[in-house]
């Protein structure tokens, strides 16, 4: 394993770390402070907005008359706004913040040209803001996750170019020959996204393809965004945080290689399975179903790798917030993929294709997996940027449990509701309205889970705000979830 000469211990805190190394890290962290904090702060602001919208959307779905007389508050406009705020405002910005910090650390070089990133963040915020206003005013394009009108999309692309060119520059000035696993995923994400976004925009709006292919391109885009942008950033982050926190190298380099390449190859072919038995050539759907099943290979390798790395260190999840969130996210990645395989099988898709189950799937990917990993990374990174520790361990604990129970309840409600809805829909002797009625109780339950998530996000935003205003703890010891017991478990936060 070590014959490859890969510094598998690189992300681990080396016991023999000299003062120079510590100093170097502190310098790198300091250089990323302003841009990363700008990305994080914007992301948290969008998260709060998106959460409020989510609650609104969820209640409106079973209370259709709630504020329905106002054009820009109609359900069909607020829902895409919620999705896009979460996807582009929260998840993308927080993901980019984490990716920037990881890139600087792993390239072992101070961040150059921070203004490029600051400008990128500014333009990105502007793009999301304009897009949100556009949708509310009735300019939505109607394609999932590409609802932003073209004027907003162009700004987003400019912003992205700034961020990506910075990442390439950073990579150009990296020190050391070795490229750590996390960097593969991050480089992949940074290079896939612009291609994906440009291809989506071009083939849908600039030189639109004919007819149903627009829907195919739309779902190809949405699924690849989920896997190759969010998934890649999430997995890369988990590959850094887990070994780092427990102070132990990744279990197997070879597994990681297999995991990465099979992920890139198979997950990019998914997407069409969500249009099962639609008006398409059957081979497209079948190819995507096959690819979805094949994503079990990266799931198994990545899962095994993380599991073996964690082996014997699971008790540390009792203390480290980062580890707890990240491991939860990494486990959810497995669940997310398994659910994805399950609902893409033709015999199951027949029932769940047009139901709430697909919403459960998106939430598993974007929230239970990606968002939880990003929360974990923020608990790790923010103290290193600000020089203060998180103020209340209890708030972190509350955040974790509210999020975990919230997303768990939401997934269960939507999956069970989707199955019920699908079963009544597939029974033509039942009135169609009964399929809708059968899912409504589950949707009310989902609204309850939304309240839990709202609580968790408000707690996090408040805690983050305290950190931002320098009200964190002044301490050399990181904030633990539970007091470390006397036997002196050496926890590196």
């Amino acid at each position: 394993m070590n014959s490859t000469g890969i510094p598998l211990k690189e992300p681990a805190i080396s016991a023999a770390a000299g003062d120079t190394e510590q100093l170097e890290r502190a310098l790198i962290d300091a250089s990323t402070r302003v841009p990363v904090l700008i990305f994080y702060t914007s992301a948290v602001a969008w998260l709060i907005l998106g959460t409020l919208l989510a609650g609104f959307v969820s209640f409106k779905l079973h209370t259709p008359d709630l504020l329905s007389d106002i054009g820009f508050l109609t359900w069909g406009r607020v829902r895409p706004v919620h999705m896009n705020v979460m996807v582009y405002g929260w998840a993308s910005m927080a993901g980019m913040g984490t990716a920037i910090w990881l890139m600087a650390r792993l390239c072992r070089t101070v961040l150059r040209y921070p203004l490029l990133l600051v400008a990128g963040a500014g333009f990105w915020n502007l793009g999301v803001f304009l897009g949100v206003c556009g949708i509310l005013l009735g300019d939505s394009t109607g394609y999932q996750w590409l609802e932003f009108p073209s004027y907003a999309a162009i700004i987003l692309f400019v912003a992205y170019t700034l961020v990506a060119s910075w990442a390439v520059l950073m990579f150009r000035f990296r020190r050391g020959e070795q490229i750590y696993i996390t960097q593969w995923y991050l480089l992949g994400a940074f290079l896939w996204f612009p291609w994906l976004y440009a291809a989506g925009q071009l083939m849908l709006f600039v030189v639109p393809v004919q007819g149903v292919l627009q829907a195919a391109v739309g779902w190809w885009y949405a699924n690849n965004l989920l896997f190759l942008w969010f998934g890649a950033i999430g997995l890369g982050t988990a590959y850094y945080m887990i070994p780092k926190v427990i102070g132990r190298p990744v279990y197997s380099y070879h597994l990681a290689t297999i995991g990465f390449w099979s992920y890139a190859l198979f997950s990019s072919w998914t997407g069409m399975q969500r249009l099962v038995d639609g008006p398409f050539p059957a081979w497209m759907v079948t190819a995507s179903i096959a690819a979805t099943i094949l994503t079990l290979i990266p799931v198994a390798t990545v899962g095994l790798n993380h599991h073996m790395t964690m082996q014997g260190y699971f008790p540390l999840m009792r203390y480290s917030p980062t580890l707890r969130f990240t491991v939860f996210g990494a486990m959810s990645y497995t669940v997310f993929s398994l659910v994805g395989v399950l609902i893409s099988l033709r015999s199951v898709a027949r029932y769940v294709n047009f139901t709430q189950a697909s919403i459960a799937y998106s939430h598993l990917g974007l929230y239970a997996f990606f968002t939880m990993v990003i929360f974990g990374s923020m608990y790790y990174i923010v103290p290193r940027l600000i020089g203060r520790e998180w103020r209340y361990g209890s708030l972190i604990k509350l955040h974790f449990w509210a999020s975990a129970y919230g997303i768990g309840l939401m997934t269960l409600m939507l999956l069970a509701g989707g199955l019920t809805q699908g079963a009544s829909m597939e029974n033509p002797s039942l009135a169609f309205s009964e399929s809708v009625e059968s899912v409504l109780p589950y949707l009310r339950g989902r609204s309850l889970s939304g309240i839990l998530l709202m609580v968790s996000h408000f707690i996090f935003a408040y805690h983050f705000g305290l950190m931002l205003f320098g009200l964190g703890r002044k301490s050399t010891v990181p904030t633990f979830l539970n007091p470390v017991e006397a036997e002196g478990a050496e926890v590196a936060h």
Partner: protein
Amino acid sequence: MKGLAPLFLGIFGTFAFSWVGLTLIPNWQIGHLNPQSDEEGTDIYPMPQSGMVTRGARVYAANGCNYCHSEQVRAEYSGADIERKWGDRRSAPRDYIFERPVLLGKMRMGQDLANIGARAPKEEESPSPTGGASPAPQGAAASPSAVASAKAASSPPATSPSPATAPATSPGAIASKPPASPGPAGPPPSKSPAAAAAASPAASPRPSAPPWPEQTAGLPPMYSAAWHHVHLYSPRSINFDSNMPSYRFLYETRRITDARSSDALQLTGSDAPREGWEIVPTYDAKCLVAYMMALNQSHPLKEVRSTGASAAASPAASPPPAPGGQPAK
């Protein structure tokens, strides 16, 4: 991993593979379809959309109708869509060649709308600007649904100036009538928009009743343009357990100046405007309804087998989907 070249090539290659495989090759395969026509070059399907319909599609997308309504009928082996009478045959790529945006939809919190235009009463297929003034064919078939009967008993007919082309009966009488047997003929299989437009809206008496229950009392015939307007304005006045939000912001309440507008909605009960006022659709609402009336995949396609050999035969064979065919939600 040593060396950047393999990493970059791999990242590039995997994605290029997916891009080519899932977008470019399908584009080569089905990206340049033409409308089909018979040997004489007539009976062309599908036809390009009118300006109002195109604008209506934008209104539909802008208000997110596609998050609850799909526009695709699956084959009979993969779902109950055809059994639910959402279409005679599965949807095919050729059905969508003039649609933009294509709003296939991924969720059915509401009915599938792929053929909602085909389900309109015959004289209403073309986007009719006459809104509420269209003759309500009240005597044709009483709705078997209790909802409609209850409505008939409780609410007086709207004050719409209904031309007496249809056999005019009082709503009470309709409600007490036994449900008429389903008519023998549904919409004929060939209904290009041009042909439909040619059909005179008011002159010809209805040849037969459509196979689905009709709302009679005070309400326009089901899935007619006027019905859509009432449904959009107040979904629960038509179907009390509907989950659809109302789209009142697409309508305008205004004072009647000299005569009641021909577009005014036929509203009853608490939705009805005050005396001297009327509720009329905005241009966007008219476009939206025009778009829905144009959603019609009932024309046979050579590459797809239609299940109900002809649309006229199928409704006679099976009873109307009693409450199942209730108004769209």
